[in-house]
């Protein structure tokens, strides 16, 4: 939504630099994790996912890292572009939750020229 970025931590990144967005999760039983991107006025858009039997997964310009020991998830965006400006959410899913997701609060990423 238009004002979803209010009250969120903000990451300012210069165009061309790499971005790292962090997320801590709480449920050690979570076995599937997703990153979403939400642009102003739009719904969350799926970026990349990772299962708990993996530590790293790469997509196009994005990499997700999972550290189960400290329950930490990160999203790395290579060569950040103005179109990457958005709110980024992590989400976790436990195996017995009917596909229900628990969402993080989100991080506002602002790309400056």
């Amino acid at each position, binding site marked *: 939504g238009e004002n979803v970025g209010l009250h969120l931590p903000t990451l300012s990144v210069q165009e061309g630099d790499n971005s790292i967005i962090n997320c801590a999760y709480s449920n050690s039983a979570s076995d599937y994790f997703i990153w979403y991107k939400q642009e102003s006025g739009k719904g*969350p858009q799926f970026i990349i*996912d990772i299962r708990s039997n993996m530590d790293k997964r790469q997509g196009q310009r994005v990499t997700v890292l999972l550290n189960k020991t400290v329950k930490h998830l990160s999203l790395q965006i290579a060569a950040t572009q103005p179109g990457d400006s958005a709110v980024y959410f992590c989400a976790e899913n436990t195996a017995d939750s009917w596909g229900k997701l628990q969402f993080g609060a989100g991080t506002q990423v602002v790309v400056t020229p």
Partner: protein
Amino acid sequence: DVKVTQSSRYLVKRTGEKVFLECVQDMDHENMFWYRQDPGLGLRLIYFSYDVKMKEKGDIPEGYSVSREKKERFSLILESASTNQTSMYLCASRPDGQGNQPQHFGDGTRLSIL
């Protein structure tokens, strides 16, 4: 590509009205979800449905009901709208029975209750 369509982008209703929010997906997904999104509170699950005519309460079902008469359509109903239901409402869907799959979202309905 998965397409989740919410019938209205913006909606203004009055207190006490019965409000219907419609969501349609074109990918034959079994599971569908309704969320509301508020600044500082993130996405909160209202109701979900794991198949036709099935429904389950989410974290904040009070004041809402849902209907899933057809697989592709999931409706959220505000029985008697109140001002604290002013929010962005998001619908999502995902397939079932194929291991872990992401939810796919519509672009939301911004509902204002006056």
